[in-house]
């Protein structure tokens, strides 16, 4: 855990955080004042005006209303909450207006992972890498249900909807790795739709981007496939050690007969694997739910070839 976090908030790590935090603390102090005021008055009165044991309860005249007092405790809180409104509105406006010089990353949410597309061609899954001190525009959409993109350290959150784009932005101010959560309930593995945001220096970012845009450089297809197996989050649902998870294990699949939910059998050859990646609901293995999302448009042909080559190595008897 980030040791620079305070009791109340994670360490501020974006240009937005300062603004949000100062309003947070303003509200915290203000509400604490009113809370202490009310509770101590209630306790003090309950003690001071208590009926002592053996004492007879008798009615005493006491004030029953006071218009000036009523007006005071209507007007003062109203003024205070108006300050909070304007302050919060100002911060919200800033978070809604994307700076013109931003770099853009396309974010896709789907059950149950995030993928990030860089204009330079790199695609990552569940790891967003951004340069420090540079505004980043997020163009987000979902392939299935509503998700929500949340990075607590940046104080940024926005729902990610199917069939429309939503836009958010941030500018990271500190190097480091930060948690990314899905914060709109999206089904069974909602709590595992986690990612990280890695903030790196400008130079490191360039190097990373070059490498990420060409992940397979110098690797055999099977080695590249092994890399993609984790990079594209296949490992969330498919093991390679034979244990069943949300989906069937990839061990000893290639070249074997696979029993499908409709009772028929197919041989798991290159074409079956390719079809199962692009149209997972088409031929579902018996005993599993058709929950895998399509990777159509996420995997490039070269990546598909590499993954199939990798699965082939797991299937050797």
């Amino acid at each position, binding site marked *: 855990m980030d040791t620079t976090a305070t009791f109340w908030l994670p360490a501020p790590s974006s240009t937005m955080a300062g603004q949000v935090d100062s309003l947070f603390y303003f*509200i915290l102090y203000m509400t604490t004042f009113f809370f202490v005021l009310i509770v101590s008055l209630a306790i003090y009165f309950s003690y001071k005006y208590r009926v002592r044991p053996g004492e007879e*309860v008798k009615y005493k005249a006491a004030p029953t209303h006071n218009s000036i007092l009523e007006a005071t405790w209507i007007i003062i809180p109203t003024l205070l*909450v108006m300050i909070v409104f304007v302050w*919060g*509105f100002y911060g919200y406006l800033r978070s809604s207006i994307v700076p013109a010089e931003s770099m853009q990353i396309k974010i896709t949410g789907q059950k149950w992972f995030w993928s990030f597309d860089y204009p330079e061609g790199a695609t990552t899954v569940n790891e967003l890498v951004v340069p420090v001190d540079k505004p980043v525009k997020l163009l987000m959409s979902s392939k299935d*249900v509503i998700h929500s993109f949340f990075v607590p350290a940046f104080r940024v959150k926005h729902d990610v*909807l199917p069939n429309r784009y939503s836009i958010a932005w941030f500018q990271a101010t500190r190097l480091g790795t930060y948690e990314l959560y899905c914060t*709109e309930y999206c089904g*069974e593995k909602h*709590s595992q739709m986690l990612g990280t945001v890695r903030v790196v220096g400008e130079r490191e970012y360039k190097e990373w981007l070059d490498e990420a845009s060409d992940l397979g450089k110098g690797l055999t297809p099977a080695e590249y496939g092994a890399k993609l197996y984790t990079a594209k989050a296949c490992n969330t649902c498919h093991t390679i050690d034979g244990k069943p998870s949300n989906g069937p294990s990839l061990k000893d699949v290639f070249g074997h007969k696979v029993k499908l939910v409709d009772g028929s059998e197919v041989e798991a050859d290159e074409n079956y694997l390719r079809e199962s990646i692009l149209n997972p609901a088409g031929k579902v293995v018996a005993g599993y739910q058709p929950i895998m999302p399509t990777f159509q448009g996420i995997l490039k042909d070269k990546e598909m070839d590499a993954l199939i080559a990798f699965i082939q190595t797991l299937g050797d008897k």
Partner: protein
Amino acid sequence: MAIEAAIPGNSPAGYGASALPEPNYLSATKGLMSWLTTLDHKRIGVLYLIGITVAFFLGGLFALLIRLELFSPGQQFIGADVYNRMFTLHGAVMIFLFIIPSIPAALGNFVLPLMLGAKDVAFPRLNLASWYVYVGGSLFAVYSLIHGGADTGWTFYTPYSAESASSVIPLLTGAFILGFSSIFTGLNFIVTIHKMRAPGMTWSRLPLMVWALYGTALIQVLATPVLGITLALLIVERVFGMGIFDPKMGGDPVLFQHFFWFYSHPAVYIMILPGMGIISEVIAAFSKREIFGYRFVAASSLAIALLGFLVWGHHMFVSGQSELSSAVFSFLTFFVAIPSAVKVFNWTSTLYKGEITLGTPMLYALSFLFLFAIGGLTGIFLGALSVDVHLHDTYFVVAHFHYVMMGGTVIALLAGIHYWWPKMFGRMYSHFWSIVAWVMVFVGFNLTFFTQFILGTHGMPRRYADYLPQFQRLHGFSSIGAFILGFGLMIIAIYLIASLKYGKVVGKNPWGASTLEWETTSPPHPHNFEYQPTVNTGPYDFGRETATHAK
């Protein structure tokens, strides 16, 4: 008066008598059928009390399973899929089966006609029908539960709810039917308050509980149909594949959120307003004072009912609704804070120069002030646009609404149950055990939910079956708190039930309260009052020499 005083157990002090006064509504007719066909608002109130108690313990069981699973990270007892069904059922049962009918339909049903000096509600048959509709709707929820339950969250957000393979339609149907029960009760109360007040019971002499129930009833009648329509549309979408909310079929998922919160935000006030009514009654009775600023407290109930309709969009600041909408909803949201603050300030001022006794109902009322203040004030964080972006859908929100719904409504319900229990059943519960349970509930509740504020500000998202190791300590405290709270609530159930047999018989007015329901016998006569009461003073006129309320 002389005749009444001769009835055993009906002396003003009450204690020492051994038998309940006869006739009373509990013993007037006998047998199960006499209860199932009763038109007596008091009996229907008791039937509702049984219903909501069963629902509360069912919903509480789900809550404890959730907290048990969350005690430490990783999977302990239940997998993610079961966990998702648990929190959905916890939410749906607690909201639709428990908290919405809780105060109005159970306690409100019992005390409203008594407080007005009326013989019954305006439509006794409609009242009984509402209970049967409630049971019918609940059976659908139970049907869904038996079929594995739904996993959509109680909010049924589309498009997930349109495609989830779990038992969604029965739960939707249950919530749809339960809405009618709520509408029946609301309609009944509005007419009752307008038409059935005792001679001399002017609007400015209404007890504040009645004002609160009036505000509640308005919302029930005006907002609930929108929920019904929304849920019906979702059922139509699922069954006939009609594209309303699902973007795959050209629908708009954000539209669902607007429809849903257009009901469900006002519904928050259906839940809290009657609780505020109870607090006004209890604070007046245990301070022996007129509620300070009666008119402001009464008017604030109506203001909350009205403003509550204009703030639903504050649930959607990050949903993709326009920035302008968000700004307008944030602005309006802050105005809803004001009438609630007015109530809290007036209750506190009522204690000034009072004659305060700390009976169990008063302990709950004072803890309501404490907990509701936290619940209300943390709402300011969530109303502020930029701060809400950070806190939305985290445990901060979970903590906030539990402080309002449980720290507010449930604590108020407990205040009300402890306050009117001797009126309802003529017997007093164990003072000792009621204090023990109160301490457990107060400590357990704060341990459970205060920790969740800190989890939330650090980013812990809600509805997570699992969490990262850094949240372990706070989750652990929260789970321990939940079990203390659960045991406290069980103790309450036990001593209340035990009091029905072993409790000391009380008289008409064991608390020395001033409203009309305390001027009839405990338990009340089947027709509430032996004579038509007439009213010539305000509701909290403790100063009057003799009871001029009742004949």
